């Protein structure tokens, strides 16, 4: 009787457990297949104006280049008004969009450039299944791990640093480690001129630190990521503190840190990690932890830099030649 019970029990197990195993495996596969992403869309209406002044002493006839937020899978911009009327919209070598405006301004005269556009930003949070992270395809690696005037991957100090603090077999881990190191070793100060990572990295005590503002933070990150084969690029635009606020800059003032109270021009980083694609990396929004794939809709991206040696000239938003840009303002409000 007992022998029979034993045999039956073993037979049942022999049949049932393999089925359980198959179910368990496929259940696991499903989890892997659906990394969760939550989106937080927000639409702004932006009124932008810029004051150009002719201080040259002759009539100035020139083209002014006005940066417009480029459309991506997470950003949708619709231009409602541009004054003076642009000749056309174009893209630069990076694919960033600008309006081309011809102006004629007499000596000592002023000219206002006015734009209105809506921009829908998809904030998002990715709940990563870290094991799914992959390194990039060759073509992406070739383009986005190359060096540039700001990202010198042959700098031995940065190369050694990157290998020491952030080498990993998992690209997401590499992304996190670099961000953590940069954040932990930041000497924040507003910087004049773009120094590039070679000059952003400085000695501090026995170690190294990043000195500068968001641009130096981003440039150092991109260089370290590229050294380790993680495709990276910079994004320029704004970081707001609330959904409705006005940002302005008077170019004749030299305000130091006070500037941050009314100007949120910002640069951050994106890394390319299949299967998710480009993921935003933010190191300055929350100084207690870097945010990777956790992108608030308080960011308003305008364009990216990643393919060209000199980056994008459109970082400056409004680009005249002989005319002088005296004042620029972005008024962000809730849009429909």
């Amino acid at each position, binding site marked *: *009787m*007992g*022998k029979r*019970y*034993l045999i039956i*029990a*073993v037979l049942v*197990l022999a049949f049932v*457990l*393999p089925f359980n*195993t198959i179910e*368990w495996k496929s259940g696991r596969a499903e989890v892997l297949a659906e990394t969760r992403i939550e989106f937080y869309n927000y639409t702004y209406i932006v009124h932008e104006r810029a004051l150009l002044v002719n201080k040259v*002493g*002759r009539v*100035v*006839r*020139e*083209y002014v*280049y006005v940066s417009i937020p480029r459309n991506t899978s997470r950003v949708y911009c619709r231009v409602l008004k541009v004054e003076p009327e642009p*000749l056309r919209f*174009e893209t*630069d*070598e990076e694919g960033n969009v600008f309006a*081309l405006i011809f102006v004629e301004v007499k000596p000592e005269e002023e000219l206002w450039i006015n734009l209105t556009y809506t921009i829908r930003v998809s904030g998002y949070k990715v709940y990563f299944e870290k*094991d799914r*992270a992959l*390194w*990039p395809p*060759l073509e992406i*690696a*070739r383009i986005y*791990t190359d*060096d540039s005037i700001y990202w010198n*991957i*042959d700098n031995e100090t940065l*190369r050694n640093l990157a*290998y020491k603090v952030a080498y990993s*077999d998992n690209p997401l881990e590499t992304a996190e480690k670099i961000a953590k190191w940069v954040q932990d070793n930041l000497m924040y100060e*507003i*910087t*004049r*001129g773009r120094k590039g990572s070679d000059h952003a990295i400085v000695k501090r005590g026995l170690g190294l630190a990043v000195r500068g*503002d*968001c*641009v130096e933070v981003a440039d150092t990150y991109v260089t370290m990521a590229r*050294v380790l084969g993680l495709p990276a690029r910079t994004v320029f635009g704004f970081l707001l503190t609330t959904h409705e606020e006005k940002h302005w*800059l008077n*170019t004749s003032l030299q305000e130091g840190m006070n500037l941050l109270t009314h100007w*949120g*021009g*910002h640069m951050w980083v994106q890394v390319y990690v299949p299967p998710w694609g480009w993921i935003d990396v933010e190191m300055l929004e929350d100084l207690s932890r870097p945010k990777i794939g956790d992108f608030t809709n308080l960011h308003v991206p305008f364009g990216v830099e990643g393919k*060209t*040696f*000199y980056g994008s*000239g459109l970082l*400056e*938003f409004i*680009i005249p*030649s*002989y005319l002088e840009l005296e004042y620029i303002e972005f008024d962000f409000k809730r849009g429909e």
Partner: protein
Amino acid sequence: MEKKIFLTLVLLLLCIPIFSIKVKGQELWYALNFELHFNADGTVIVRQKLHPFTAEGESWFGKPEIEEDIKAEEDIHVMFALLLFTSDPKRVKYEVISHVYRDDEEYVLCDVYGVREMVQFKGAYIIEVLIYLNTTDFVERLEDNTFRVRIRDSFTSSDPRSWIDVIEIKLDPQVKLMAYSWEPKTAKKPSEVSETRILWVNYNEPEAPNVYILDLYIPGLKLPERVVGYRVEIVDVKIRYRGVAVTVKQLGKPGYFFVRLVGEKLDITRKIYLEENEQKTVYIPAPLEGQEEVKVEVWYEDYLLDLETLDLVEKDSETTPSPIASKPFVVTSILVVVIVLSVIPVYGIKRMREKTSAVRSESRVK
């Protein structure tokens, strides 16, 4: 009109807020006239003629401080010459055949006032750079010795308001112009075209091409099939949990290399830095399910250095079972053992009881 580089004495860029600030001070511009001479041997000489002027149109040619600045910034001008033909100047072989010098008899043209009339500035700072086209990345072979050469306006590329005012392309008699075009199409066509010369006169940036495209027969241009000096060999390839471990050895110059896995719908690349004679193992996580074979490649820039094919069907038996695969087996075994162990005592007690009751019934019979 102008533009071009706007370098100068006192221009400052504020960066946190990404923005340029012009501080009071003199701002200078350069008129830029370029001559590109394509030689039959596959080189090109870039002759840059620069003339500095103020926004009012006043020439600053000959001012000692300007001359000093231009000489001090020669590297930047060389860089702009290289960037006509490449995105990666470090890869380009070149020679500076004339360092910055002053030529009082040269003329440089520029539409300073935006009225579609060229101002003719007298005098130029000149720098000449010889570039080996076979080390650039904007050259593509069309057939035999015919090549498509893309010349990118390196000034527009770095600053949308800048452009080359005049670009004159000259060809050796043995070099033949097969075709030409430009991008974007909204830009203006060349002012003059002959068998050995093309001239673009650009009054403003929107009219200036961003890219000048020439199809040229160049008898002496040989594009390299192998890169010189960089050698990396694949020493070992092993399948490891959810990926492949590739051991490579550096046998040439140090540098960055790409180690790539290629299979069906699979293209995964890790970039590594190898010192001289260094051997390194790099692990590439990869979903190998469903792959019968994958190729392991090592690249230096555009050059394939080594290649190995990994047969996954054969290797299957050598593969260390992954925790996912092995866990159910372990769990099953443990459960079987536990059940057997728990059943044995029950079975034993039952047997003992049966024995006892047999004895008892025996006695009763007795």
